[in-house]
């Protein structure tokens, strides 16, 4: 079986790939500053016995895709490291050093409220962890590279970026870094590192196992896909069964020819939201463009998806609820407005957004996080943080396929939103 697990609570994404041989690979990592990656915890639960990962992949250097990746190398022996093409390039590391020295954050660090230098430090930690392992095989995520797995039963083919895209990203990176020191040893005050589009480096990967195909599109945006169709024609990707949608479901991540080529009414798309930015994702336009191509679209956090896109994402599964504390019942009797804070499936009172949580409820939730499950979804799943205890069961989509494209097993977390294809 070929398994794919997408985790995305709203501040980053990780995809875990289970290979038919029983080996496991990880694509991208997210974590808060002082916490380990939630996906690492999930991996430990999923495969408590494994000590070695087949591969770890870093698609591009944005904080929602790279934070905490070094911890996988600390915990596991890693056979291969698949990296975006400029990783360890002098200009790239110099760029992050300059960001740190200038106390500047890029748009994603800012959105995630990480201090300046976070990506720089984590990249260095990652390089250090790689050095410590010594014999990790590096593989660059550049189009047409094909990595053979499971003695040839599975292949991983890199779709983006192609040579043209690599050239473009490296040129912008060099120009941006050069403009930093335009005036000599002092930083150029007009330097704008946020203008550097790291998504241009995004490595997207197509896994093939017999007839089964899984496409992970990372944060590749339209121009990268245009480079692919320019080079390989209008149908560069065969039909796939599972897509991890590009760039959190933004309109920029959509490319008509690519989706026409890769998707059909058997395909499902999973999006991970990113709701911290000025332009929250997925967008209404982005999702509406996807719906005609596929059977189903899932977004790993329905509340953030609703907020960002304005569409009515529905949760497929209900979640377990603990018993209500007697104090809460008494409080609700005294103040019926508090009922709107609770799960509306139980109370039939939709959350208005106006009622605040009583302070003592906040205290008890902090001490007993399971009580959070009693609160209504819009209240508790808006801007989820890394401290969510059950992140791996709420904001995860897992699918397992045989080699004929049939779904053998699946799990849709109770925080995941769903829209049917049109």
């Amino acid at each position, binding site marked *: 079986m070929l398994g794919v697990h997408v985790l995305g609570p709203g501040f980053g994404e990780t995809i875990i790939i289970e290979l038919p041989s029983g080996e496991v690979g990880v694509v991208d990592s997210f974590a808060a500053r002082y916490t380990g990656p939630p996906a690492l915890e999930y991996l430990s639960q999923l495969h408590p016995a494994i000590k070695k990962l087949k591969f770890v992949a870093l698609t591009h250097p944005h904080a929602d895709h790279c934070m905490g990746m070094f911890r996988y190398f600390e915990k596991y022996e890693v056979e291969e490291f698949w*990296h975006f*093409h400029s*990783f*360890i*390039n*002098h200009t790239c*590391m110099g760029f992050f*050093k300059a960001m*740190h020295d200038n*106390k500047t954050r890029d748009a994603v660090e800012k959105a995630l*409220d990480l*201090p*300046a*230098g*976070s990506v*720089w*430090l984590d990249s*260095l*930690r990652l*390089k*250090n962890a790689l*050095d410590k392992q010594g014999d990790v095989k*590096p*593989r*660059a995520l*550049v189009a*047409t*590279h094909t990595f053979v797995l499971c003695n040839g039963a599975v292949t991983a083919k890199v779709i983006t970026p192609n040579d043209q895209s*690599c050239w473009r990203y490296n040129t912008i990176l060099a120009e941006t870094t050069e403009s930093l020191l335009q005036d000599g040893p002092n930083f150029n005050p007009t330097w704008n590192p946020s203008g550097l589009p790291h998504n241009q480096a995004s490595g997207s990967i197509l896994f093939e196992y017999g007839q089964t195909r899984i496409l992970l599109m990372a944060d590749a945006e339209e121009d990268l896909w245009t480079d692919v169709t320019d080079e390989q024609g209008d149908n560069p990707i065969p039909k796939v069964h599972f897509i991890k949608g590009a760039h959190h479901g933004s309109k920029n991540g959509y490319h008509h020819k690519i989706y026409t080529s890769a998707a059909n009414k058997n395909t499902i798309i999973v999006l991970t939201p990113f709701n911290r930015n000025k332009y929250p994702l997925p967008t209404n336009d982005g999702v509406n463009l996807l719906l005609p191509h596929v059977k189903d679209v899932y977004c790993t956090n329905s509340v953030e998806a609703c907020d960002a896109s304005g569409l009515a994402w529905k949760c497929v599964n209900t979640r377990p609820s603990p018993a209500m504390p007697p104090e809460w019942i008494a409080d609700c009797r005294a103040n019926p407005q508090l009922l709107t804070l609770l799960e509306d499936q139980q109370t039939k009172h939709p959350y208005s957004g106006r009622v*605040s*949580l*009583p*302070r*003592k*409820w*906040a*205290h*008890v*939730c*902090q*001490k007993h*996080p399971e*009580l*959070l499950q009693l*609160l209504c979804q819009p*209240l*508790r*799943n*808006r*801007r*989820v*943080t*890394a*401290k*969510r*205890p059950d*992140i791996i069961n709420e904001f995860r989509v897992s699918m397992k396929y045989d080699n004929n494209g049939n779904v053998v097993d699946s799990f849709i977390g109770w925080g995941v939103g769903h829209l049917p294809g049109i």
Partner: protein
Amino acid sequence: MPGVRGKCSNKLAEWIDSPVDDVARYVKVMNSWATSHDSIPEPWLPEEAKQPEPRPASAFKVSPDVTLIRRLGTVPAPAFIETVTGRKARCLVQVAGAELPVEIPIRILESRGLRIGDRFMWWMSEDGSITAEDIDDMPPNRLTDAEEAEGQRLYDSLREQVAKGCTWGMNPTQER
């Protein structure tokens, strides 16, 4: 309003017919200076300004007070002031991995120098009561000294590697 006018008139008359003789008072004071100089303060000398008293802590932006003993049973949660309506501030509090809206009296936040958009650490009490002492500053949002040192050490090590000739990852076309 004759009555009122009458009252005013009476008061005015009292003032005009005041028995106190200002001149006589002045003379008395002058004489007293002359006769007992030591007993009288020296108003003509420039008075040394008192050291300004430290402003009450409430007037400052919140500063972490590690010596402060927290109330029994309080637990910390990072919070952010989202809106203010009337005398209540709606704050988003990070509780168990969620950002939940909680109301806090604005006077308490103001007494700690906090306004809309500010962040703070709230030590939540079991009964929901809140005092100014339950509000702390957030740690500064920057890399810690240890993180800075670690970053610098790793970066220097990377530069050494580069100087010796980086081993891999430089040329993606090698792996085609």
